[in-house]
């Protein structure tokens, strides 16, 4: 097989060709670098190509593999990192924001270091919504690299804030990418770009070296072409880290042969009537029918709790502290999205007692969701009520009250894991998707369910026409 034919293979498939030296690591890295260089700008997916580092790592990987020192399934696999992850060697880490265009760190984030150790090869820093959307953005043009564009429709938003991570995987610019989610930032790009995203349990992956938006809400996770790939990446990046006190000591082990087998019990949150596109509803219903031989479904409702108020208060207060000095120095004035230049000031006025009240209610949320989830292997719902927003529209107008899906809000408040997978196509040729949410530390259960679906369907293997060839 030629390296150019391998760009849409899964990590496992690509890794096997690399391990058996049927594909050369330097060759595959050059192919992805070329795709990033030529196709990346069409989707505003790339901030910085890390070609020098990648080529050096590729040579080392090739030598190691030839000498019989194979590190595992990520050895020799190129990847992109959301540009909030610190990278050394003079590679800028821009946080998607014009004021930080030239920012450089002299260390790698823990996730980057762990992927290095696994033998993966960093080929690009990927575009993102400025400051991970923390200043409050309401339309797609919220990054100094331009609006993220989904490879499925060049007039539609790739989603955010991990905009480049979603687009790059969908367009075959990288086999996998690292994104982050505070409140939707893996879910939305995975959905809009038709790829698989995994948001681990809070604390599963070290946040050291990642821009902090909200210390108790930020999670780092992979976007890739399938659930198995996401699991392989999670296995490389998860684990305790003395540099991040929130990183759990719980080990994460992934053995695809040892995953739970069907039947699975699913608590189904139906999308409701208001503001849901017909294709989203139809594809979700059909997906449940496809899963029927493997699952027992029961309609459920989320416990009634003020999820959104809790999330917004925690995010506002922690964001205001994380960016206190930046805002005091007038940094907001240089942001790309006009609405972010003033809106964030208001969000600094959360009273301390209200922030603490939100944290106290959060304990009730965590317990209530765990009680519900203890009866099921996962809760399932559409990821979003609509396909990707047009580049020319703002979210309040397009999403009409459905910008935040309740399950995403609730599960982020509780720090729970989720997997987001494509399940069809809708309006304007754009993907639709669904999310499975599990109990804390239950990533493998979600991966088992997603893999069951992906073994029976081919949505996750679909390739946008525009990117099949350079």
């Amino acid at each position: 097989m030629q390296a150019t034919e391998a760009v849409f293979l899964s990590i496992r498939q690509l890794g096997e060709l690399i391990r058996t030296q049927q594909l050369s690591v330097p060759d595959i890295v050059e192919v992805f670098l070329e795709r990033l260089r030529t196709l990346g700008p069409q989707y505003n997916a790339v901030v910085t190509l890390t070609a020098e580092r990648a080529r050096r790592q590729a040579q080392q990987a090739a030598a190691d593999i030839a000498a019989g020192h194979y590190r595992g399934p990520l050895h020799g696999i190129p990847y992109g990192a959301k540009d909030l992850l610190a990278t050394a060697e003079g590679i800028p880490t821009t946080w998607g924001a014009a004021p930080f265009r030239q920012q450089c760190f002299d260390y790698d984030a823990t996730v980057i270091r762990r992927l290095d150790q696994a033998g993966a090869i960093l080929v690009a820093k990927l575009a993102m919504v400025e400051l991970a959307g923390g200043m409050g953005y309401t339309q797609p043009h919220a990054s100094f690299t331009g609006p993220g564009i989904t490879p499925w429709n060049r007039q539609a938003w790739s989603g955010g804030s991990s905009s480049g991570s979603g687009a790059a995987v969908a367009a075959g610019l990288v086999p996998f990418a690292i994104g982050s989610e505070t409140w939707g930032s893996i879910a939305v790009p995975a959905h809009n770009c038709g790829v698989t995203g995994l948001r681990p349990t809070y604390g599963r992956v070290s946040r050291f070296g990642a821009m902090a938006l909200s210390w108790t809400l930020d999670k780092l996770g992979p976007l890739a072409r399938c659930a198995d790939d996401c699991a392989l990446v999670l296995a490389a990046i998860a684990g305790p880290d003395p540099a991040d006190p929130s990183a759990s000591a719980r080990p994460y082990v992934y053995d695809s042969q040892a995953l739970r087998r069907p039947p699975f019990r699913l608590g189904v949150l139906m999308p409701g009537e208001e503001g849901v596109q017909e294709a989203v509803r139809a594809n979700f219903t059909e997906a449940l029918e496809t899963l029927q031989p493997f699952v027992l479904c029961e309609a459920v409702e989320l416990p009634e709790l003020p999820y959104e108020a809790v999330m917004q208060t925690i995010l506002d207060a922690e964001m205001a502290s994380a960016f206190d000095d930046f805002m005091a120095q007038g940094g907001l004035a240089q942001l790309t999205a006009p609405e972010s230049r003033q809106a964030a000031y208001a969000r600094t006025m959360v009273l301390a007692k209200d922030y603490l009240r939100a944290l106290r209610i959060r304990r009730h949320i965590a317990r209530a969701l765990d009680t519900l989830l203890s009866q099921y292997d996962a809760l399932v719902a559409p990821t979003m009520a609509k396909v990707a927003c047009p580049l020319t529209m703002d979210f309040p107008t397009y999403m009409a009250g459905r910008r935040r899906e309740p399950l995403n809000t609730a599960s982020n408040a509780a720090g729970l894991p989720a997997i987001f997978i494509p399940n069809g196509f809708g309006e304007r040729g754009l993907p639709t998707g669904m999310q499975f949410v599990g109990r804390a530390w239950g990533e493998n259960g979600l991966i088992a369910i997603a893999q069951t679906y992906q073994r029976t369907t081919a949505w996750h293997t679909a390739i946008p026409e525009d990117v099949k060839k350079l």
Partner: protein
Amino acid sequence: MDSSSSIDLLVQLVLTHYPTPLTTSQSTVIREGISRLEQTARTLRAYPLDNADEPLTVFHPYRAERE
């Protein structure tokens, strides 16, 4: 103090903390944002809590590991 007065105070606090020149419409954006904060806070305050309800974030005293 009514809600409008407390919002005015918070807007003034913003302008004191972040002395960036703002147009009238920009000040309006801030005021609207603070109004939403107030609304969010009312939602939180409507949820009953007991004294025993602790925040989900737990403080752990720090001690460096021995070498």
